[in-house]
């Protein structure tokens, strides 16, 4: 079965990068929103390959089930879907050129960095599921951050409802 892992990896990598390119370069905002679904799904596939089963489920439930639905609602509420061309607007050619230059420099720097650094890696133990260790760590080492996150989510709910309310 080991020979299948590179095939699956490159499949998910192609899915992530192609759909992310559609998100970035698409002329229609609704296509970008639906391409984002495939990006999130490919990232969830990466999490499965990286032994993070709980994170993969969380990714699908929160990103695809929550954030993406919110974004699609936002698209539908703020653009005129009935028009043929959804004007999404891009910046001028010169600005685009400078942005492309900056991104290329950042990307090449990152790639050179990644190919030259010798990361310290360890053999990983075979464990069945990460849910039990994550639960133990969340309620012991990260208990303060856990509680702060719950308060933050409550504040975000109240704040979002208050801001989005019609006057």
């Amino acid at each position, binding site marked *: 079965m080991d020979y299948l892992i590179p095939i699956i990896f490159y499949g998910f990598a192609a899915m992530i990068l192609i759909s992310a390119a559609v998100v970035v370069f698409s002329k229609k905002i609704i296509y970008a929103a639906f391409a984002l679904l495939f990006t999130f799904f490919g990232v969830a596939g990466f999490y499965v390959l*990286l*032994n993070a089963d709980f994170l993969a489920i969380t990714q699908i439930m929160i990103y695809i089930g929550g954030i993406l639905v919110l974004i699609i609602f936002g698209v539908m509420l703020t653009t005129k879907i009935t028009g043929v061309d959804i004007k999404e607007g891009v910046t001028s050619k010169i600005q685009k050129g400078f942005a492309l230059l900056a991104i290329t420099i950042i990307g090449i720097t990152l790639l050179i960095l990644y190919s030259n650094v010798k990361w310290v890696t360890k053999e990983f133990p075979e464990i069945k599921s990460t849910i039990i260790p994550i639960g133990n760590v969340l309620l012991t080492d990260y208990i303060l951050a856990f509680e702060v996150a719950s308060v933050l989510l409550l504040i975000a709910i109240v704040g979002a409802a208050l801001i989005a309310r019609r006057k």
Partner: protein
Amino acid sequence: MIGLNEYLVVSALLFCLGLYAIITRKNAILVLMGLELVLNSANINFIAFSKFGGLNIHGQVAAIFVIILAAAEAAVALAIILNIYQNFKHVNVDEIDKMRD
């Protein structure tokens, strides 16, 4: 065999694409989508280092907190965008230059 570097390269490319979207897009929702791409690339890094550092569970917990913050940020950002749309009738970030009527 797929090692750490392959994951890091995919995450770097995803980061660059997200940053390009943040810089060049004018529609606020597309800027938000670019932001999600950047957060996802950071999460891939966290979990890749978590696995190749001996399946260290702390990396996965950091990724959970990133997801929590992304959810809160998306909700508040979309509320703000809806409010902007009510006031300006568009959501182009470079034409929104008034803070009061």
